[in-house]
């Protein structure tokens, strides 16, 4: 299917997506997630419409309450009349590729709200807390006219920081009583936060966790941006108004230049991914024994791995 991207030749799916139709949004996400033949045109067609949604990322360890907090957050966003898209990522099994996508269990109160669209994605072997196509799925929701796209990562440890590159506002959720104050100053997930949330604030250790995080923040450079530490109890909808206020404030703080720079970075990343995918496909297509020969040379110590990689690249037909 090679159709020129003129408005007259637009596939109906793209038109319906840009009108914000629910079924079209669902189908477009499937096309992008599974990289079907419709995907390239769709992704090209939505580009001029991107950058309007505020992308809010939630990450944190399993069981910290990400889904429950997102559920309360949606209620507050809807009270403020924002259209909401949610991308919820759960892990795929490394053994079978299967997945249980259960984040929406905690979001059922919004099922009947037509302005809330939730899509579950499996991580499909992708490390970093998201799925291979999460960034593209977020773009599709943006193009469909959602005001806010909330992204929930898989339960993340200390280094699943990919969300930092994708979201406009990064929220790291902690639960009380996990780890000590040395853990709080380690590099990684806490550093990417624009807002830190201590959820389950009704538990006994909550105050201490809040003060540990504040101490961690106090150790940063003097010119480091201000990061609020908020306490929430998502199951009781407590602290949610303050959280949404903080999110919207951060969303406004980002200047046009900052947003443009971030958008460019996202496209750079998509281009790098697509180029990498093509390269991998080309390399898989080399079946004339070249790769085995190179590997044996490496094993014999005749060739460095880096030099072998250079030779392999030289063999590939890198044209269009």
């Amino acid at each position, binding site marked *: 299917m090679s159709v020129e991207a003129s408005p007259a030749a637009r596939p109906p799916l793209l038109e319906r997506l840009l009108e914000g139709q629910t079924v079209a949004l669902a189908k477009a996400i499937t096309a992008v997630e599974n990289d079907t033949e419709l995907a390239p045109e769709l992704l090209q067609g939505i580009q001029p419409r991107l950058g309007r949604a505020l992308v809010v990322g939630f990450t944190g360890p399993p069981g910290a309450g990400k889904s429950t907090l997102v559920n309360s957050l949606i209620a507050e966003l809807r009270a403020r009349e924002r259209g909401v898209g949610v991308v919820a990522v759960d892990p795929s099994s490394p053994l079978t590729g299967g997945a249980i*996508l259960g984040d929406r269990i905690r979001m059922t109160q919004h099922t009947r709200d037509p302005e809330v669209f939730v899509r579950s994605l499996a991580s499909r072997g992708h490390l970093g807390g998201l799925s291979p196509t999460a960034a593209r799925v977020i773009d599709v929701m943006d193009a469909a006219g959602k005001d806010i796209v909330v992204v929930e990562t898989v339960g993340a440890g200390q280094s699943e920081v990919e969300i930092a590159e994708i979201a406009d506002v990064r929220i790291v959720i902690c639960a009380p009583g996990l780890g000590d104050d040395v853990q709080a100053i380690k590099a990684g997930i806490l550093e990417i936060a624009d807002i830190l949330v201590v959820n389950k604030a009704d538990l006994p250790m909550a105050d201490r966790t809040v003060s540990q995080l504040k101490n961690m923040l106090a150790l940063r450079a003097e010119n480091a941006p201000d990061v609020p530490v908020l306490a929430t109890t998502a199951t009781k909808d407590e602290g949610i108004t303050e959280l949404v206020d903080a999110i919207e404030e951060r969303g406004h703080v980002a200047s046009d230049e900052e947003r443009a720079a971030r958008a460019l970075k996202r496209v750079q990343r998509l281009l790098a991914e697509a180029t990498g995918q093509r390269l991998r496909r080309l390399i898989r297509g080399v079946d004339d024994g070249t790769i085995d020969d190179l590997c044996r040379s490496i094993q014999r110590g005749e060739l460095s791995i880096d030099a072998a990689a250079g030779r392999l690249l030289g063999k590939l037909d890198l044209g269009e």
Partner: protein
Amino acid sequence: MSQPPKILVTKIGFDGHDRGSRIVAAYLRDAGMEVVYTGPWQSIDDVVTLATQEDVDVIGVSSLATDHLLLPKLMDALRAADLGHIKVVVGGIVPDADAESLASAGVARVFHPGSTREDIVGDVGDLAREARAGNAVA
């Protein structure tokens, strides 16, 4: 890129006994499928919305206490929402006489007690592929 079958495992109605649906969800996961698990007490409208947003290939409904009698209504609602390509299966306690009327309402398969993991995984996988072929048109 591979496209694992996407399955919605759910329960409609007032019965909350969801152990069976959890076991089946785990079977399907272990067979490499992506399973959206909803938990019990969904309404028909909820299931239609979930199936729309998640763009699933198969809906698996667990029924232990006559909830299967709601399935003809679900089939109508799916067709009305232009989701007629989705295959619907039911598992649990379904009397033979009801199984016949469910089949004529368009339910693709009834899994009775004694169904094996292989039966369920094999049939659901086949139905998912069939549904996706019918959904190829955007």
